């Protein structure tokens, strides 16, 4: 009996040290190797010698090892080591506030910051605006004044890099003889590049001096709403004299059929 007692005491001590601390957390696995489990928060936790790996749904042991993208519920022992991991293919609800398990995170170098790095010349210059929170939905109203020679039956669209420059990406509504308008919900932080078209890239807007114009740019801030006013001075298919140089243009001096939709065979009037 005297021999058994120390063994019982040692067993009780071992059981006590292996007992869970009661702390647990959930997260997505980044890596699992060399005695650590890494989460997408960038945190690493040391594994206990005999970590148990379970299926989160059945709570039965599994032969799988955690892999990147797995979702995991992690249990800590009193030493702050990971004693058990439940794996799931779907996100698990957040259970423990991260500050409570911060003490178990493997020690990191002291955090410090450097000045904002200079983006490389090929990058979009204002992608990360420092003064607003990205992701907020903002109602942006675009109003454009079109050239007076825009046909009354014309439709005006916005083409954007977000739609791979589909020339009919965003349909605008005519609000009077010279103006079109549309409201879109865009996430703040969106770096919006766009041009106005009449439905094709052959009818895209041109600069005031007749040259092809670079896409307009708009960075969506996190204001509740935003109004954008633009002017289109001319379209790419404009002709300076109002007559398009093409067969069947009406009327031209060498066009025998000034009104092209007369029925076939009907002698068309011409001088």
């Amino acid at each position, binding site marked *: 009996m005297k021999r058994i007692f120390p063994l019982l005491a040692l067993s009780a001590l071992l059981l006590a040290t292996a007992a869970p601390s009661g702390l647990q957390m959930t997260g997505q696995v980044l890596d699992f190797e060399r005695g650590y489990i890494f989460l997408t928060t960038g945190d690493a936790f040391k594994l206990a010698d005999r970590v148990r790996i379970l299926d989160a749904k059945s709570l039965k042991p599994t032969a799988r090892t955690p892999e990147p993208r797995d979702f995991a519920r992690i249990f800590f022992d009193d030493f702050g080591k990971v004693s058990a991991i439940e794996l799931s293919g779907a996100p698990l609800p957040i259970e423990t506030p991260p500050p409570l398990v911060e003490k178990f995170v493997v020690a990191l170098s002291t955090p410090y910051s450097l000045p904002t*790095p200079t983006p490389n010349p090929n990058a979009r210059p204002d992608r990360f605006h420092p003064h607003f929170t990205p992701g907020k939905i903002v109602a942006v109203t675009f109003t454009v004044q079109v050239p007076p020679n825009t046909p009354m039956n014309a439709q005006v669209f916005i083409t954007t890099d977000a739609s791979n420059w589909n020339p009919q990406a965003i349909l605008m509504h005519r609000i009077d003889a*010279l103006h079109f308008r549309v409201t879109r919900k865009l996430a703040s932080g969106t770096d919006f590049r766009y041009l106005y078209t009449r439905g094709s890239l052959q009818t895209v807007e041109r600069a005031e001096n007749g040259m092809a114009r670079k896409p307009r740019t708009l960075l969506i801030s996190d204001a509740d709403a935003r109004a954008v006013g633009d002017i289109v001075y001319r379209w790419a298919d404009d002709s300076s004299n109002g007559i398009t140089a093409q067969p069947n243009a009406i009327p031209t001096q060498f066009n025998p059929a000034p009104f092209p939709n007369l029925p076939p065979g009907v002698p068309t009037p011409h001088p």
Partner: protein
Amino acid sequence: MNLRLIAAVLLAAVLSALGGWKPSPGGEPRAPMPRPFIAIALLLLLLAAARAGASAKSVQVDPLIRLSADRISFSFDRYTIDASGHVVVRASNGLVIHGQTFSMDLKLDRYMVAGHVTLQAGGHTQHGAAVSAYLQYDRLYVVPITGEPDRWTFIDNDLTKPYKGLIMPGDVFYFADFGRKRPFLTARSAVIRPLHYVRFEHVTLPFLGAPLPLPSYYLDFSADPNLVQNSLAGATYDLTYNFAGNEHAISALHLRYDSINKGYLSFEQHLSGRNGYAVISLNPATRPQKYWNGILDYQPNQRLSIRTFTQLYTDQTWLSSPRSAAQWSVATLTYALPKSFVQLTGFQTNYRLVNNPTESKNHPSYLQFTATTFPHQVGKLPLFESMNWGIGFNHDSYGAYGNGGLQKFGGYEYTTIWNHTFGFTLYTPSLRLTHHVPASKMYYFNASFTHSRQYFSVPHFTDVQTTSASISRQFSTSLGAYLNYQVQNVGDIYKVGGYTPYTPVINGVSYPSFSSFRGIATFRTLALGINGSPDPAFNWTILARVHRDFPKPEIGLFTFTPYNVLGNVTPPGQLGEPPYDITADLRFRVARHLNLEIQRSYFFHYGTINWSPTFFVQFTP
């Protein structure tokens, strides 16, 4: 450099076409060689395309990323690439990364590799749990595994100098959210040029419920609109397969359908550079009647631009010798001045390029010089004006009537006609008609007047005059309306002679309204438009119009006005519009990246025709 070469090739092609197929004095074409010519032109264009890609290296900063893995997935919804199993990333700056999984958000210009990661660069190796590359800032954020895990930052790809403890973005190691949706495609490898394109290789694409294996699939997401310029004519349906490309070129096959050609294939090659772009297409490629189109736009500086469009028509079985062929080309040179710009436009058509007696011999040419001023405010008035002036030259030794000349008038056949033109535009900005009322009760007024007159060396002139006025009101942010009245006069006025009285008789029915036509047509349109957009994903429009045209739109006299692919009548000023019509247009989102537009018109008092011929239905991304 690349586009200069392309310009030279296209110019040579056009000159060859004009020179090689210029009809001889006897009226017969010289020995035509269209097939070798086409083959040589295509070869040169492909060389130009290759050169365009090669010359692009000098302006690249972001590294080219070559990704291979057991499985690569792409999601169109989120523009994310995910890869898993034996991931290898090889960047053109010498960085090689091995890992278990890869995740990239193409719009955010960053990627991550996680799971048993090994980085190699400049002869150094670093092991870690994950690495996140922020390409915009040339930074690598790494969770290294040395003695214990830490967080290190490498700058400028230098693995010898870790910045330990440098603060990282909060979501630096987050996977892009791929969700549970099925991927758009899967592949075994990919080439990624950040902010420009991705080209997948060994692709499997779900198509009509079955996996479709493809050798490659190219996807452009660059900020360059010129790379997607197109030169294809409209089609009812178009399924595009970009099978090759880089940041300056795309090669695409189009599976198309239209009511005339039915199903067919087309090919299109896009090229884009810093100073311009070129597009070459063959459409339809699998039908005898083919159109070979080429667009070249070259802007060497901020003041000068050159744009050409050339269309070659051939009637041939595959690439055999054409039975008939025609070509037209238009080139516009634009030069910007401080408050105006000038344009020189040349237009040339050859209706018979091969010896086919049934084809017209016409080959009219046209050269027009115009100067256009910028819009300019008239004093302090709420009125803007702009003007244009031009001089032009037209020539055709064969003529539209088949027996010589551009026009027969007064017993003389004109083979050359000079013209000069003058035009101006006056317009008002939006003028408030009501004051001191809420915005929803505000009325606005707009008016514009455009006049263009063109005199010819044949004693006549043409007038195009358009007057428009509108009143509009925005009832709320989602509901607006306008009332517009427009009058357009199109006239062809002869000092002597000109249009003679004429009464068409069709199937025994005479149409006397045409008898008083003397060369001036008038189009009057009163339009009421109401627009609703209760949600950005749901829009509707109702447009009611009254037309009062001269000559009167007699039912049965005019063919039905053609509609373009957007459901609009084109060109404007077509005779024969019904006196009353109402059009409803509904556009709404049916999927995250797919909109559906449905449109149809109803005609009042237009004989037995009550509805427009078909519903206009269009899906847009």
